[in-house]
């Protein structure tokens, strides 16, 4: 209940609250090499868990940061990027984001702006980086500067999943930043979500009837659910005592994502 924004039955996203767990998400257009980068970093560890219903692939990794062992879950899209938008659960509780484009295809670079905008709607503060992949195809691109990362104040990496250039460096730095962020979250949303979750737990019993009402609500347009977890709405919903409808709007959206996929 409390975790409905990230509601994926197979996954308990609450685990990401534990100190030794971080969630890192990958964003970027189709075929920019997101999975290839994961594969190059993880090598033998590479055992993706496909959640095809949700167009989602998970990779688990154990990392050592300082003296601590950290369990890292990498979230990768599996075609969901085609909707030009990710389900809110994808961003939920993420501690860092790796944005990838293909140096051979301009459109994938231009689309970074859209991905970044959506990321910041959900996660205004988490560490993020820009990755220019496939430099092996044409090393000359490394003599060019790409201004998007600089303008947004994001670290930028030239990498190649094929020959391995800077792949491990990039992942290690992002894991470190994810862990640092977790220790010192600067995100207002994290606090709001925590508050909301506590509130939900308290309200759960007295509101159990409202569940059915919530479920029968017609599906919302994705556009409206995008704004679902913005602070203002969260407060409205919370203090009107109607937190259940909030939760079910988001699970309606799961159904919608799946439906629109089937309709293609």
């Amino acid at each position, binding site marked *: 209940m409390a975790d409905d924004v990230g509601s994926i039955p197979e996954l308990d996203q609450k685990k990401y609250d534990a100190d030794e767990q971080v969630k890192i998400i990958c964003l970027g*257009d*189709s*075929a920019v*090499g997101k999975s*290839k980068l994961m594969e190059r970093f993880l*090598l033998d560890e590479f055992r993706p868990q496909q959640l095809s219903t949700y167009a989602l692939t998970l990779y688990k990794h154990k990392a050592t940061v300082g003296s601590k062992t950290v369990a890292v879950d990498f979230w990768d899209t599996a*075609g969901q*990027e*085609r909707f*030009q938008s990710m389900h809110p659960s994808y961003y939920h509780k993420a501690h860092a984001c790796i944005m990838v484009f293909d140096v*051979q*295809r*301009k*459109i994938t*670079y*231009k*689309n970074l*702006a859209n991905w970044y905008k959506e990321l910041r709607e959900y996660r205004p503060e988490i560490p993020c980086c820009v990755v220019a992949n496939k430099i*092996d*195809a044409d090393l000359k*691109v*490394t*003599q*060019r*500067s*790409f*201004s*998007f990362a600089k*303008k*947004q104040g994001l670290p930028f990496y*030239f990498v*190649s*999943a*094929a*020959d*391995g*250039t*800077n*792949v*491990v*460096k990039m992942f*290690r730095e992002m894991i470190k930043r994810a862990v640092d962020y977790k220790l010192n979250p600067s995100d207002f949303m994290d606090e709001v979500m925590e508050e909301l979750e506590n509130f939900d737990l308290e309200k759960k019993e007295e509101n159990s009837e409202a569940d059915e009402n919530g479920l029968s609500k017609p599906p919302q347009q994705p556009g409206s659910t995008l704004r679902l977890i913005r602070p203002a709405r969260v407060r409205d919903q919370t203090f009107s005592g109607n937190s259940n409808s909030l939760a079910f709007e988001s699970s309606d959206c799961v159904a919608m994502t799946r439906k629109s996929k089937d309709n*293609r």
Partner: protein
Amino acid sequence: MSCEAKRCGVRFSPPSIVLMYVHTDTKKMRKRIIPVRNFSKYSDCSVAAERLKNHPRHRDYLRQVPQSQLEKLHIILRDHMQGSSLEDILASFRLDPEEDLNKLDDEELARKKGQMDRLFERNRKRTDDPDFVYDLEVEFDKSNQEKCSWDEESDDEF
């Protein structure tokens, strides 16, 4: 029998895979026409390719032909059976850097990725390569970088 595969193609009528190979003993170039049987416009190309690759009469000849290539040839054959022109079929495999791949369906995307994978495999460093370095780091000199043309035309977008 030992042979060296040179080229492999497809013939629409009757549906066949055509293999050019050099006979190792005689050094002569030969052509082998392999009929594609039990194959329709509804067939699964990957299954058909695997079946052909392991066919007892042909597998010795096809040993050097990657299954992915056989699959691609079957896709061409199937698309042709579905009425597409050869030009359109070949275009569906071609990479256009301007094309928005987000707009393709699974199979169309798989074709483009197949092409990309060829470059990837060509440049790939494998763990068993003697000069493989897991955490390969390369610094690129930022001081001499020129502005990328992708930023010029629409700076305001970002």
